[in-house]
């Protein structure tokens, strides 16, 4: 009897041991990887920033320099100023746009969502420069309006930065609020209206409070994006200096630069973004509520005038946001007279990039694809650990992955250089360091995509598989991964689309052999070849847009996955 009872227990214990081993080892390996690529570089940046100063010998000398010299600390105040106002205006623009586009029968409704997706594919840097081309002191639009005696406020300085950030980042709010509106039940609105509330009052007292989580989440994304943006303020900031420009300036300083000072400034930048992320997580946890509407808010027919006004508002906002992209595409077909573009259409710009686009194009696609595959494999494993194996190391992993949201590209780039320059891990200048940087920066997309799917998939099948004798690795590959296939694929498409445009970390990590399209665009813009930069930019727009088209058509994903 006892012999028979003992028989099956033996393999089960072994399987149990195998489970522990496979996932423990995986957890350890993944922790080591993300720790080495994110925590160690950041720790090194903090370490460098605390180097003893030359003047007082104190560890905090560089921080004291920052906070005692107005030239420096003013950049922090300036950054906060533009980020807060961008957050406010993006909310004021994004909420009504989302409300009209989702509740009113405006004309061209289906176009709106496609157009909002387009705002996400704007190539870095050249998008910002487009605003100068259009609204600068001698900009195309400025001159056109001047000819009719209309003068517009300057695009330069704080007001210009706030304007550009608002248009660039309001889609975060638009998408989150659109998704929030879908989770509100029609009965709430009906009740308020039946009690005699006007539409605005209903919105203010009944709907807006329910949208609070979407709005705060979106607003903080706008804040972080504005706070870390380098391309826009470097071009239109002029005397209005912000923190990322100061860091970049100290890092590229001629004849040596002051890397220690740059590290201290980076830590200050990182502290603010981390704080904002923590606030956002706090708020979203507090607001979390069951969000399934039995009867979602309906689309309402509107009287003609209201319909016209709402349509005009929505398309004015989206049209303005798409101006840089339109400008890039049009400019790519304009003839160049030396450094200036003239109003004649030609394919010359494309012909001129033909013989030198091969290397950067290949690099861009190769790095992006490898990084995306790494994200998909490791991101899915992390999602499994986070959802199925809760515990201390699992929540540590979750926190590290979320933390990578808060790390600006420029800070990650500096950290990786500091950490991986010397043998045995001398990775600077290689393709590998760029791939690893892309991987760690974009990992959250894959993790989040798989986590939300995994939370909906019951673990019964996995348990059955283990009970029938399959090992944990086999179960993960044969059962879990197929169940997550759509989530993994959509996470991968998002990763690809976001990675291909990466500029800020690449600027610091690339070497000639590892140049990318984004780098080529940056170089052409600063050298004044706007036509060539636009041709490269148009190619990048296409490469960014295509995977998104697959995502939204073939996979039927909603635009909300973008944020």
């Amino acid at each position: 009897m006892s012999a028979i009872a003992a028989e099956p227990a033996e393999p089960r214990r072994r399987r149990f041991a195998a489970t522990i081993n496979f996932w423990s080892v995986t957890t350890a390996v993944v922790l080591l990887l993300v720790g080495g690529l994110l925590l160690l570089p950041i720790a090194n940046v903090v370490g460098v920033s605390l180097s003893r100063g030359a003047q007082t010998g104190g560890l905090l000398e560089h921080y004291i320099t920052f906070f005692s010299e107005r030239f420096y600390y003013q950049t922090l105040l300036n950054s906060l100023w533009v980020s807060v106002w961008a957050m406010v205006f993006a909310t004021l623009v994004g909420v009504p746009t989302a409300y009209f586009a989702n509740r009113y029968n405006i004309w061209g409704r289906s176009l709106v969502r496609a157009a909002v997706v387009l705002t996400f594919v704007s190539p870095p840097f050249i998008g910002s420069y487009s605003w100068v081309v259009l609204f600068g002191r001698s900009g195309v639009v400025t001159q056109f309006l001047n000819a009719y005696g209309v003068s517009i406020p300057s695009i330069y300085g704080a007001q210009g930065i706030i304007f550009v950030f608002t248009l660039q980042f309001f889609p975060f709010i638009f998408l989150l609020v659109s998704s929030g509106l879908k989770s509100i039940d029609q009965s709430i609105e009906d009740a308020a209206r039946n009690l005699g509330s006007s539409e605005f009052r209903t919105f203010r007292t009944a709907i807006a409070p329910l949208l609070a989580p979407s709005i705060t989440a979106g607003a903080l994304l706008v804040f972080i994006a504005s706070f870390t943006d380098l391309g826009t303020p470097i071009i239109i900031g002029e005397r209005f200096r912000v923190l990322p420009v100061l860091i970049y300036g100290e890092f590229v300083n001629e004849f040596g630069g002051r890397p220690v000072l740059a590290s201290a400034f980076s830590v200050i930048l990182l502290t603010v973004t981390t704080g904002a992320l923590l606030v956002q997580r706090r708020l979203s946890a507090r607001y979390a509520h069951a969000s399934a509407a039995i009867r979602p808010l309906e689309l309402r027919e509107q009287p003609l005038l209201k319909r016209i006004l709402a349509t005009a508002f929505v398309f004015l906002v989206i049209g303005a946001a798409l101006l840089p992209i339109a400008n890039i595409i049009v400019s790519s077909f304009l003839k160049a007279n030396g450094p200036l573009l003239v109003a004649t259409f030609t394919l010359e710009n494309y012909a001129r990039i033909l013989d030198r686009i091969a290397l950067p194009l290949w690099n861009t696609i190769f790095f992006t694809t490898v990084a995306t595959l790494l994200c998909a494999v490791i991101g899915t494993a992390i999602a499994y650990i986070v959802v199925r194996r809760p515990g201390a190391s699992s929540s540590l992993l979750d926190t590290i992955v979320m933390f990578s949201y808060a790390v600006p590209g420029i800070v990650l780039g500096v950290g990786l250089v500091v950490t991986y320059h010397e043998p045995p891990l001398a990775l600077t200048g290689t393709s590998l360091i760029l791939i690893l940087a892309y991987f760690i920066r974009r990992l959250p997309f894959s993790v989040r995509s798989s986590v939300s799917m995994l939370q909906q998939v019951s673990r019964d099948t996995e348990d059955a598989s283990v009970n029938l004798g399959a090992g944990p690795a086999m179960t993960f590959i044969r059962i879990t991964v197929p169940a997550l296939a759509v989530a993994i694929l959509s996470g991968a498409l998002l990763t690809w689309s976001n990675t291909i445009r990466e500029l800020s970390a690449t600027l610091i990590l690339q070497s000639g052999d590892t140049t990318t399209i984004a780098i080529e665009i940056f170089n052409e813009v600063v050298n004044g070849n706007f036509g060539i930069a636009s041709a490269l930019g148009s190619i990048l727009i296409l490469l960014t847009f295509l995977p998104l088209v697959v995502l939204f058509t073939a996979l039927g994903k909603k635009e909300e996955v973008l944020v």
Partner: protein
Amino acid sequence: MKTITKLLAAAGAMILGGPAIAQAPQHEGNLVVYASHPSEMVDHFTKMFGDKYGVRVTTVKAGTGELLNRIRAERGRPAGDIMWGGFADTGASAPDLFDEYRSPGLANVEPRMIDAKGYNTPFAATAMVIMYNKKLVPADKAPKSWADLAKPEWKGKVVHADPSKSSAALGALTTWLQIYGKDDKGWSVVEDMTRNQTIVIRSSLVFQQVGRGEYPVGVTYEEGAFNYVLAGAGGIVYPSDGTLLEPEGMFIVKNSPNPKAARLFADFLISEDAQKELVAKFPGRRPTFRGIKTHPDMLPASELKVIAHDAKWASENRAQILDRMQKVIVKTQN
């Protein structure tokens, strides 16, 4: 047998190719060029060189400052062979990063362009100029001298790069100090000029912004401005109080991985072919090869008022100059 074949082949080559093959330059087959010059020119000459000698050239393009940081960071394990950019004394001021090289081709170069310390291969020369936008400033209203830029009428209308981020801007700053005094007197002129200026982070943004009409006036190097002169949008003023006419920099990185190819590239850039190509394709730059003329629209060097540049002073005091300039910027740019 093998030896005989080799000998025969060698003899055949001697007969067919003559001395050309016997003297075919030796190189490693690869070359890595770090360049802060505009991409088009860098690509043009590296391709010409690669095709001519069968060398595979890779380029890293970035600002001079970034590239120097990079070379310094890679000191233990250099990845680049050539630093193409910066001012003539960049090499001599960093002997820990660069090697001396005196190309045989220097025999044909204007003597005043030659680096006494032997680090630079002077492939082109450039002057610091005042550039103005023709639409915004009539030619007769443009500033005539550096001193004019300190006048109140130009407040907020002058764009200039940060000298700690641009070797061209540093060149302008040392010029002003040499004209107006290296002491407090000169610095007070600099302070007055800086108060009128908007300081940008890249030297190429200066001629771009003036050329596009975003600023009426800028302080920049001749070549950047000259492209806009040819396009009809910009004008150049050679300041009446004097300007700097200096060779541009090209240096060989210390312990470079491909030293033979690097020296070959230096020889190539100051060869007659390359110098003629420079004037034909990139007319904004002044050739250094004796007897090759500049573009007809460009004022010949003999008609410029050039200051006697004290390169030794400039490179020895660079750190203090940048430090003091930083204080001026902090004071005037809030």
